[in-house]
């Protein structure tokens, strides 16, 4: 009896530790973002002040709103483009058997696991040559390297699991592959499209290396680069309050989305194996 009680207690201590460690840094960032002046440099474990100075500072000064807009635009468009391409590609990979299919799938998986630095020099040349350097298009274009293989891969695993009968019936009725995709599969695929789109969106929203390299002016930056570059009057004066406020602003929508779509995200993650 005592032994089981001790075990139960130990288990719940472990559970509590997992929750606290997961949530605390975000909680502390929120706490800090509501502090201003000297309160910032006092360590507090509980909320003590509720000053909105950091938020108004971040949102009114500089180009942070513009950066938010850039992030939304880039992530939104890259997800839309990837899904558009991926739907037909994954139909071909999942439902039609042809020579070289296994190799193609392996190649697509390999591209999604690519070290991005290996293409950085070549992409830089290409982006300058096309003339889209320092525009959102540079990012929309380069982000396809990770969103496209990921969406193709996840949608392929999803489509492969759909029963064969629905397709057979359409074939017997003389439906062409294009009609099969748009009329038979699309209505069934909404959940998968939402999950995949959401995961790809998060990955694009969080991307840093390409955003840092392919944009050069403040107003063209996306949020992660903007946060990394937030600086105060001098290099020794880091505006922690503003950084935390900006961090909370970009993270809260993500956390809400993730908590709302929890189950979907977990199933999408395990199918696609992406860190985001």
């Amino acid at each position, binding site marked *: 009896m005592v032994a089981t009680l001790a075990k139960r207690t130990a288990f719940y201590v472990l559970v509590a530790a997992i929750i606290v460690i997961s949530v605390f840094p975000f909680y502390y960032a929120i706490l800090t973002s509501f502090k201003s002046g000297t309160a910032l440099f006092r360590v507090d474990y509980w909320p003590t002040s509720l000053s909105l100075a950091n938020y108004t500072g971040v949102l009114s000064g500089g180009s942070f709103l513009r950066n938010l807009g850039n992030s939304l635009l880039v992530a939104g468009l890259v997800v839309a483009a990837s899904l558009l391409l991926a739907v037909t590609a994954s139909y071909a990979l999942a439902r039609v058997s042809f020579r070289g299919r296994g190799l193609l799938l392996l190649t697509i998986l390999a591209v999604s696991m690519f070290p991005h630095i290996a293409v950085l020099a070549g992409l830089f040349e290409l982006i300058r040559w096309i003339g889209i350097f320092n525009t959102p298009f540079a990012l929309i274009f380069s982000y396809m390297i990770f969103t496209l293989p990921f969406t193709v891969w996840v949608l392929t695993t999803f489509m492969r699991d759909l029963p064969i009968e629905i397709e057979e019936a359409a074939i017997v009725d003389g439906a062409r592959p294009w009609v099969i995709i748009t009329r038979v599969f699309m209505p069934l695929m909404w959940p998968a499209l939402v999950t995949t789109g959401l995961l790809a969106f998060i990955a694009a929203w969080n991307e840093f290396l390409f955003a840092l390299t392919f944009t050069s002016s403040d107003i063209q930056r996306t949020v992660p680069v903007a946060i990394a570059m937030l600086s105060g009057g001098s290099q020794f004066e880091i505006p922690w309050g503003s*950084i935390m406020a900006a961090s909370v602003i970009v993270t809260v929508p993500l956390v809400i989305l993730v908590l709302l779509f929890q189950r979907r995200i977990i199933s999408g993650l395990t199918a696609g194996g992406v860190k985001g």
Partner: protein
Amino acid sequence: MTELSLESASTVPAARGAIGSDLRMQRVRSAWIFLAPTLFMLAVVAGWPLTRTIYFSFTNASLTNLSGAEFVGLKNYLSWVTLKSGRTIFSGLLADPAWWGAVWNTLKFTLISVSVETALGLIVALVLNAQFPGRGLVRAAILIPWAIPTIVSAKMWAWMLNDQFGILNDILLGLGLISQKIAWTASPDTAMIAVLVVDVWKTTPFMALLILAGLQMVPGDIYEAARIDGIHPVRVFWRLTLPLIRPALMVAIIFRMLDSLRIFDLIYVLTPNNAQTRTMSVLARENLFEFDKFAYGAAASTMLFLIIATITVLYMWFGRVNLEGER
């Protein structure tokens, strides 16, 4: 080994007779048409740039003069001159201590972070696999570190790890674990620890979820049988659970490993200009865009690509990873 056998029941079998064969031909033709835009896009955005990076590594290209690049052979990788005195001076990437330092940092970071994340991920996954009230809460909580952008988590932790005003020093001082405040991210002794802590915090949830997916595929009656036979739970874990989830575990580990080997953003933001944490990606980008040694940076990028490719192939070979197994 990594055979993706998709020739399963999900594809419509070729119908019988001539009509069937026509149908098959038509389906295969459409398949290639459907694939064409994606394949073209991947070739443009991945294949071509990779080829160009490798090409640049054999030239003397500079950031301001990409088009005028001349072929210089292996000079960026290794070259040497023998002086009159008989001394030979080596130069190039392979003779550069900074490069080997970065290789070592990357490997050290990958080895430690992936091991710790696997161990902790297993623990969290086992907890989540148990039935208890509040399980949904734990699952929601561990999704938070995963959802937070890497740059944001780097900044959040930089603030918590701050030497003067950071809460971590405050906690550790309060507990009496340290006697004076530590400059975690700036000090050469602790910079790598700081990076590891943040990475483990951020990516253990991902590991846990992948392992959990594997755990949930283990049929419950196996545990039931082991329990009836009176086998100790620890023994059940090592002899039963672990072998059964091995495929899922191996896939999770390789995904994390590939991610750690290319790490850039966390280190760039958390511990900038620190030789103890400079990884291959950081060094390559510095040379490409900051030091005006574009070709040299391209050589570093190419080497990084080769190293990661080699490690991946070796891992899949020795680990007999079956990518089919994860699904």
